[in-house]
């Protein structure tokens, strides 16, 4: 009985965190360190998310981003492209990026880490 109560409590507790995520930034295959100060970091809400390329503005490439959003338990809702996009924006903002271009998503499905995983990739850029 005690075990059931503890398990139920743990499940409810974990269900509160619907998703968890991880991200990495690389350039030319090497990890990119966050070298900008907090003032230089951008507001994630202001980072543009573009599925193709930006053709009307010049930019400098900061890093290639890769994020994975996982649902915490089998009972949580699947991660959406919007959630993965938000994570891309957060990672880009840490690098001081203005936009994430070439954004692309995988398909939600079971992975070794979760019953529902969604991967997204994009390129963090800063306008010149």
């Amino acid at each position, binding site marked *: 009985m005690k075990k059931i109560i503890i398990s139920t409590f743990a499940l409810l507790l974990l269900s509160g965190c619907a998703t968890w995520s991880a991200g990495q930034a690389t350039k030319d295959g090497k990890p990119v360190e966050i070298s900008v100060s907090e003032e230089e970091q951008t507001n994630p809400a202001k980072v543009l998310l573009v599925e193709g390329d930006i053709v009307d503005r010049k930019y400098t490439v900061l890093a290639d981003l890769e994020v994975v959003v996982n649902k915490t338990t089998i009972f949580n809702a699947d991660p959406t492209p919007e959630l993965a996009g938000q994570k891309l924006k957060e990672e880009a903002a840490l690098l001081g990026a203005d936009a994430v271009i070439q954004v692309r998503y995988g398909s939600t499905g*079971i992975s070794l880490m979760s019953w529902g995983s969604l991967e997204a990739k994009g390129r963090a850029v800063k306008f010149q």
Partner: protein
Amino acid sequence: MKKNLGKLILNTTNFLFLFASIVALSGCARNAPDLPPTFADNNQQEVANALGITEKDKAMSCSQIQLEKSQVDTDYAQNENTIRSNRGRNQTVGYFSAFLLPLVVATENDDEAKANLNALQIRKDQLDHLWKVKSCS
């Protein structure tokens, strides 16, 4: 003693089966396609070669590129819908397979739709590159 040993073997078999199932099912999530080469850091010819753009592609007009882009977007959405519609079924099977493991074989892996999406993404990148090189708007 024999009974306990039997239980242990059964538990180990269940665990191995569960593990093998999860490993087999790990293909269910499709990774995001790789990013194309960085246009800013390479010359046009290098990028075109890396993207597999043919001479025939290079001869396309802006309106032809636009038309194909629309078609690719439509096909992309259709394949995404195929995967999304099977996701509900896979989840239900996932719930019940916790009690009845053999049910995991009933999951739909959508290999064809996933392969289509990957191919369409490559074409999207090619068309985006052509769009930029030709300064289409």
